[in-house]
């Protein structure tokens, strides 16, 4: 009797477990299918975009008048941005596909630049037309390859989940058809990117290369000298505990990385100093600041003194912000009453004791030695006339900024308001171009859901 009851119970238990397992399995499958569908959507949209891109570049070429290209080029720009967004949804980050992405970026950059410029005034040059042709044929090649991969995926029912697994398994990811296909595309795109896109083709000069150029030729320092520089920079005695490391080959310049134990309170201070010339690049102190005992104004004075002491000449405070108990100050170099924003330094001050807890001088080091533009052919009033009449001008400065082409340009800087919003507008002092218009952020209300 008891036995049969037990058996019955066991049978029920087994059946129950089986049913539960079946449900779990179904659920897991549903989730997997959904993830797979997301990948498939992104993938097929990507190939649709590339198809479309080729067509649109083609119709731009076929347009009779070079002045009417704008709509077509705008479309190209939109499609590249969509393709980039689709790429971002595919598990590609460990797959070498960056050259294709760069290629897309370049097409986007080229079409944007030419779409927004006034083609009536300044139609495409012969050279740019050639570039457009090249882009057309190159995008055609990419389109072909992409179609091949897409056909394969559809015919063989290839799954992106398998791609993920293959990449995670790591034992020769080249076995996967999709991965292979993308590798071929990327190789092609790699050859394209050597094509010349003209001087303003959005070549991004990296800050590290600029810094390397600046410190080239300066005297190399050794570790002990780096420690001395750090001590002086921080205004600390020299008997602190310090660990020195050097940076690797990935950076254009060589630097010492210092980890200093603050003798006062035991917190760690981190700092990088270039090997050549011994220039402090950045500094960070790891400390949670719990109270704000000094005012932002006093802190900004301290930040200013800190810069002065360390040989930064005529720096002016251009912006300050309080983040809870830290003051963050942006300084710009002043050259004859011109704010040189490209020579910027950021200093952070703890508002509990006024210590400097952060410094960052990448752009100062990269740009300071460069000669600044001084040509001013527009007066303040002439520049003022080019502003939106609805803007009520509140402040004016002369300023040097880096424009979109990464050139330093002299500008009239206007701060003004439209209704309650504040805007900052840079008008090129030489040619009157509106270099940059920024809407200044307002303080953000705290959303408290507790």
């Amino acid at each position: 009797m008891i036995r049969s009851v037990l058996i019955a119970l066991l049978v029920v238990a087994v059946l129950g477990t089986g049913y539960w397992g079946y449900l779990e399995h179904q659920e897991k499958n549903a989730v997997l299918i959904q993830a797979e569908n997301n990948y498939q959507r992104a993938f097929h949209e990507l190939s649709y975009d590339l198809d479309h891109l080729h067509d649109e570049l083609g119709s731009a070429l076929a347009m009779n008048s070079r002045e009417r290209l704008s709509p077509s080029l705008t479309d190209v720009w939109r499609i590249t941005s969509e393709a980039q967004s689709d790429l971002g949804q595919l598990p590609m980050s460990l797959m070498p596909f960056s050259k294709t992405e760069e290629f897309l970026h370049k097409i986007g950059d080229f079409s944007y630049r030419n779409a927004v410029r006034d083609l009536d005034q300044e139609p495409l040059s012969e050279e740019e037309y050639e570039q457009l042709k090249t882009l057309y044929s190159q995008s055609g090649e990419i389109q072909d390859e992409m179609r091949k991969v897409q056909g394969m995926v559809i015919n063989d029912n290839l799954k992106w989940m398998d791609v993920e697994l293959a990449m995670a398994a790591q034992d020769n990811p080249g076995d996967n058809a999709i991965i292979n296909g993308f590798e071929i595309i990327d190789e092609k795109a790699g050859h394209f990117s050597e094509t010349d896109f003209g001087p303003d083709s959005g070549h991004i000069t990296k800050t590290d290369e600029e810094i390397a150029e600046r410190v080239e030729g300066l005297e190399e320092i050794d570790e002990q000298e780096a420690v001395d520089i750090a001590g002086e920079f921080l205004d600390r005695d020299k008997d602190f505990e310090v660990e020195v490391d050097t940076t690797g080959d990935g950076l254009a310049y060589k630097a010492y990385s210092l980890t200093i134990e603050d003798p006062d309170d035991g917190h760690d201070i981190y700092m990088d100093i270039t090997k050549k010339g011994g220039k402090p690049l950045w500094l960070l102190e790891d400390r949670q600041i719990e109270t704000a005992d000094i005012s932002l104004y006093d802190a900004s004075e301290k930040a200013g003194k800190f810069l002065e002491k360390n040989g930064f000449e005529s720096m002016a405070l251009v912006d300050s912000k309080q983040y809870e108990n830290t003051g963050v100050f942006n300084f710009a170099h002043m050259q004859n009453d011109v704010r040189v924003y490209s020579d910027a330094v950021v200093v952070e001050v703890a508002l509990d004791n006024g210590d400097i807890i952060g410094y960052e001088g990448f752009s100062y080091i990269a740009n300071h030695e460069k000669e600044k533009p001084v040509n001013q052919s527009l007066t303040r009033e002439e520049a003022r006339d080019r502003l939106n009449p609805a803007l009520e001008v509140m402040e004016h400065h002369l300023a040097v900024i880096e424009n979109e082409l990464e050139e330093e340009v002299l500008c009239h800087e206007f701060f003004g308001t439209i209704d309650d919003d504040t805007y900052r507008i840079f008008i090129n002092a030489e040619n009157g171009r509106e270099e940059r218009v920024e809407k200044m952020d307002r303080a953000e209300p705290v959303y408290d859901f507790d």
Partner: protein
Amino acid sequence: MKKRKTGRLTRILVALLVCMQISVLLPESADAFSDQIIQKGATGDDVVELQSRLQYIGFYHDTIDGVYGWGTYWSVKKYQEEFGLDVDGLVGPKMKHMLEKSTDFDKEFVHRMLKEGRKFTHYGGMPLDKQKGKKPGTGKPGREETARKPSEPAPAQPSPEAPAPETPAPGEAAPEPGEQPEAPADETAPAPEGTPEAAPAPDEGAPEEDIPDETPEEDAAPGDDEADIQEAINTPEGFTDNDIQIMAQAVYGEARGEPYTGQVAVAAVILNRIESPTFPNDPAGVIFEPRAFTAVADGQINLDPDDTARRAVLDAINGQDPSGDALYYFNPDTATSGWIWSRPQIKRIGKHIFCE
């Protein structure tokens, strides 16, 4: 001897009384600005007071939120220009003194409004209960209203409420020295030396009676208001607080337990990817890119980040980059991809190797 003692006692008593008297007479002195010079970008109680006082005389029409932003900056400069101070946007002792004399600041009202998250204004010569907005977020404001109404004692709604001028003329609010002692005993009443057009004295009884009655339960804990209120916060240009939060979650999931620079470096890698043409162009796009971050893949991104992670993100946004422009990093002990080893390495921080 005895007489002397009593004499002393009475003197102490008198002194005490005088003290009390003064504290009753001059309640503002306790609420007035601290002695810091207020500079653009500051946050906290002094800024709330500055904005309220500027609004009282019609110089400031934006939200009173405790953040010295651009709106406040222009108001301060306008005030400085109007009254012949140095037009530098710094609120020093002189300007504070002038403001204290010419305007009234109802700290209790303002801080309660901020705490309750209501929309409100603080114009002079206007009953405060008319400047008070609805409580947000409850979803059923109607019930709130009715729930509070019965608790209001009878004298809460005095009838003679002359409509006050909506926009006091700034020019009329010029500070006139020597009027300070006239400040009424009740701290909630607007000072009579406000604008001449402002509501006449008899009407000013209205707000002063209304305020404490509106939410009597709040009166029990005025001490809470002493803490620095931050109803709005500074965020770096181009990022919202929510962006910062998402990035802090990613940093916490990826690099908690790493040295501080390691955390800043991870945040910097996210920002470098946003800048880079080969990655998505916004924080969420970069962070949630499939297989980009292990913390996203295994769900650790949903952990609550600590203050350090948030601080690291802010530092990175403010320009710090200990990674040296890195786009990738990996943990050499757990890295599964051979490809990642082929990238040129920049430096090692804690457990992570950062590379181009």
